[in-house]
C-alpha cells in the first residue's frame, strides 16, 4: 500500500512548526486575489471593507477551525452546519426565556459540544466512519430542529448580547478579536501541545498511534467535542449578528467550512494541515464573495467562480509546495 512515488512528492513533515513556506504561499494566493480586487474595485481597499471581509470570514473560520482538528485525524464532520442551527435555536430560546445572555451562551456552547461528543462517541465506540456518522447526525439534528422550531423564528435579543456579533471595540469588530484569539489558541493547541501532536499522529496512522500508547479514542472524542463546541460558538456569533434564529440557518454553512479547511491545505487523509491555513482558506472564500458583490456580478456566476478559485488555490499550493522539498 506504500506509494513511494507519491510520498516523495510530499514534503517531510517537519518537527518544528509546520513548514512556513506552505503558509506563505497560501497568504500569497489570498494577497493575489486582494490585488486583483483592488484593481477592479475602488471600494475594496477601504478599511471598512477589509474589516467587513474579516468579520464575514470569522463565522466560517469558527466552524472551520474545529473542523480542522477533525480533518487532521482523517475524519470529517458534516453535521457542523446543522449543529450551528440547533445550538442557535436552543441558545435563542434560553435568552428569550431567562433574559440572560450568559445562560444563552453557555447553552449554545454546551449544545454544540454535546452534539460533537455524540459524533465522537459514534466514531469511537460504535466505530462508524465519521463521514457517515456525521451525515446521519446531520439529519437527526435537522429533524430535531424542525420539530423544535415548528417553522417559527426566535428574534430580538438584548443589545448587550448583540454586541458580540455586531459590536466594535477600538474600531475593530468584536468577531475579529475573537477570530484572532481562536486563531492563536488553535495554532498553539495544534503545534505546541502534546495533545496536538497526538492528533497529528492519529491522523497519520491510527493503528500505529494506538500501538504507540496514544489514547486514540479519548483524543478523538476530544476533537469531535471541540469541533462541536466551536459550532456552538459560531451559533452564538450568528445569533447575535442576525438577531434571530431559525431552523435553516445551518444549511449553507457546512460546505464552505469544509472548503475553507481544504483550501487551507489540510489533507482529508489526516496528519497534515494547520489552523492558520484554514484561516486563509476562509479568507479566500470570503474575498471571492465580497468581490462579486462589490463588482455586482450576477449571483448565477458565484458557484462557478468559487469552484474555479478553489481549483486554482489548491493547484497553486501544490505547485509551489513541490520545490520546497
Amino acid at each position, binding site marked *: 500500500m506504500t506509494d513511494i512515488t507519491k510520498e516523495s512528492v*510530499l514534503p*517531510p*513533515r517537519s518537527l518544528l512548526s509546520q513548514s512556513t513556506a506552505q503558509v506563505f504561499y497560501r497568504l500569497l494566493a489570498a494577497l493575489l486575489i486582494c490585488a486583483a480586487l483592488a484593481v477592479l474595485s475602488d471600494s475594496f481597499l477601504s478599511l471598512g471593507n477589509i474589516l467587513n471581509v474579516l468579520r464575514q470570514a470569522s463565522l466560517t473560520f469558527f466552524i472551520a477551525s474545529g473542523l480542522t482538528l477533525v480533518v487532521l485525524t482523517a475524519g470529517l464532520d458534516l453535521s457542523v452546519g446543522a449543529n450551528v442551527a440547533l445550538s442557535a435555536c436552543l441558545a435563542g430560546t434560553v435568552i428569550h426565556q431567562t433574559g440572560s445572555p450568559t445562560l444563552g451562551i453557555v447553552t449554545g456552547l454546551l449544545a454544540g459540544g454535546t452534539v460533537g461528543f455524540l459524533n465522537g462517541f459514534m466514531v469511537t465506540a460504535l466505530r462508524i466512519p465519521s463521514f457517515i456518522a456525521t451525515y446521519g447526525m446531520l439529519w437527526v439534528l435537522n429533524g430535531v430542529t424542525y420539530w423544535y422550531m415548528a417553522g417559527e423564528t426566535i428574534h430580538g435579543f438584548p443589545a448587550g448580547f448583540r454586541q458580540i456579533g455586531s459590536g466594535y471595540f477600538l474600531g475593530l469588530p468584536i468577531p475579529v478579536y475573537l477570530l484572532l484569539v481562536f486563531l492563536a489558541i488553535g495554532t498553539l493547541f495544534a503545534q505546541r501541545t502534546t495533545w496536538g501532536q497526538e492528533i497529528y*499522529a492519529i491522523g*497519520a*496512522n491510527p493503528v500505529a498511534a494506538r500501538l504507540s*500508547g496514544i489514547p486514540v479514542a479519548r483524543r478523538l472524542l476530544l476533537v469531535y467535542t471541540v469541533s462541536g463546541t466551536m459550532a456552538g460558538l459560531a451559533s452564538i456569533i450568528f445569533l447575535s449578528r442576525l438577531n434571530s434564529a431559525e431552523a435553516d440557518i445551518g444549511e449553507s454553512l457546512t460546505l464552505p467550512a469544509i472548503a475553507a479547511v481544504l483550501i487551507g491545505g489540510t489533507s482529508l487523509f489526516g496528519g497534515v494541515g494547520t489552523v492558520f491555513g484554514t484561516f486563509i482558506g476562509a479568507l479566500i472564500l470570503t474575498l471571492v464573495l465580497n468581490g462579486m458583490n462589490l463588482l455586482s456580478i450576477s449571483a448565477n456566476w458565484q458557484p462557478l467562480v468559487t469552484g474555479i478559485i478553489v481549483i486554482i488555490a489548491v493547484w497553486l499550493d501544490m505547485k509551489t509546495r513541490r520545490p520546497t522539498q
Partner: protein
Amino acid sequence: MSAAPPTAASSPAPLLELRGISKTFPGVKALDDVSFAIYPGEVHMLLGENGAGKSSLMKILCGATSADAGEFYFKGDKVAIASTADAQKLGIAVIFQEFSLVPFLDIAQNIYLGREPKGSFPGTIDRRRILADAKRVLDSIGFDIDPSVIVDTLGVAQQQMVEIAKAISQNARILVMDEPTAALSDREAELLFALIGRLKADGVAIVYISHRMAEVFALGDRITVLRDGRRIDDLRPADVTPDQLVRMMVGRNIDMTYPRHFAEAPGELLLQVKGLSSTTGISDINIEVRRGEIVGLCGLVGSGRTEVARAIFGADPVAEGEIVFDGRPISGEPDIAARRGIALIPESRKSEGLALLRSVGDNLVVSALKKLFPSGLYDPRGAQRTADGLIRQLRIATPTARQTVGLLSGGNQQKVVIGKWLAAGAKLFIFDEPTRGIDVGAKSEIFALIDRLVAEGAAALMISSEQIEICHVCDRAYVMRDGRIAGHLSRSELTEENIVRLGMHDE
C-alpha cells in the same frame, strides 16, 4: 548447488549487465556508479547494510524507478529499462520487499494482475483459466491454498508466498527476490529454497537480497557487496568467510555471537501472565518475565506468538485470565500498558509501527510525549534534541530528523520503531520480530542495546522466527504451538533442535 556456477571467465556474456548506475534522492546518494552483472543459472546475492541501496538498485533493474545515470545491456545489447513493462519484456520479475498485492482481490487475480487470460467477451476474464493457472503456479511452489481466497484474509507469510507465486508465474529469465524469507517460517523457506534450485537448473538467473548469513552461503553462487551506495566487491562464497563479508558490508568488525551479560540471579518478577485467553485464538497462556531477563517466545508462524504479545499490551481484548505487571494487575487499552511501562515493537512496521508520512523525529518522540513534556506543552526543540540523540544512538541512516520516515530503507524504519520506545523509558520491551530486515551490524547493535536495557533493570520478551537468535540472546524461552504454550526451555536446554521439537505439530 550441484551445477558449477558460471563465472565471468567461463561465460563472458552476462544475461543482463548494469553499468555505472547512480541514483540520488533528495539528501541521499542511494547509488553511486554501481556496476552489476547477472549470469543465467546463478544465484547472485546482494549484500549490504540497511540503506546501502540494494532495494533501490533492484527497483531500477525492474523499471520501477529510473536511474540518474547508467546503462543496461541485455545479452550484450544496450537496452533501455524505463518502465516495468520494459523490464517485463526482458523477462525480469521481482518479489518486492514491500508487498505489491491488492487486498480485496483473490489470489489468482493478484498473481495475474495485468496479465489476465481473456474471456469470451471483450474485456472479460476467463475465470476458469485464471483459477486453473494460478492453482498450477501455487502447486509448483508447494503452497497448498485455494486460489479464489481473498488476499486480505491471509497472514503475512501467506501473502509472501502469493508474492512469490506472482513472480514465478511470469516465467521470468531473471528473478529478483528482495528479502523473500523475512516473513517466512523455516518450513516455507525450505520450500522456497527448493524452488530456487529448480529455477536455477532451468537457467533462470536469480538476484537474492538477504541479511541472513546462513542463506548467503547456502544459496549464493556469487556475492556483490554494496556499502553506502557503492559497489565494494564481487566475489564467490567459497572465497570469503562470514566475518570478512560482514567487514566489507559495514567497514568494521562485528561480533556476530551477540555477547550477553547474563545475570547471576534472576531479578524480581515484572510480568506474570496467568491463564490468558483472547478472542484471537490463544488460550491458557502462562508466562513469567523477571527484571534483567530476555525471555524468548518461539514457535512456528501462526502459532499465536503475535497474539500473545498483543494481548499483553492490550491491543487485543483479553477473554480470560489475568496479567500482573510490576506487582499490580493490568488491563485495558495500549495507552494504559504504555503508561505502566510496557512497550510493543510490532511485527509490521509499516502498518502498525510508523506514521509513514511524518518525519523520523515525529515518529521517534510519539510514544514519549508524556514523559518528555509532562506539562502537556510541546517543545519542538526538545523533541528535536531527543530525536537527534536516538538517531545517533541507533545509527539510523537519515539525512536529518526531518526526513519523512517512509523514505528510509526498511531496516532503518525498523530502528525508528525500536527507538520510539527507548525515549519512552519502558520497563518491559515486547519485541515481535525485531530484527526482521535488519542488517548484521544493526542486529548486533540492537542486541547490545537490549542487553544494556535489561542490565539496567528492564526486561524483554522476544519473538523471533530466527531460532538461532533466540538461542544466542535469551535467558530462557517459551515455545508455542497452536495458540498454547507447548513448553519451556531453560538456558541450558535452549537449542534450535529443542525449539523445533516442541514447536512442531504432533507427529
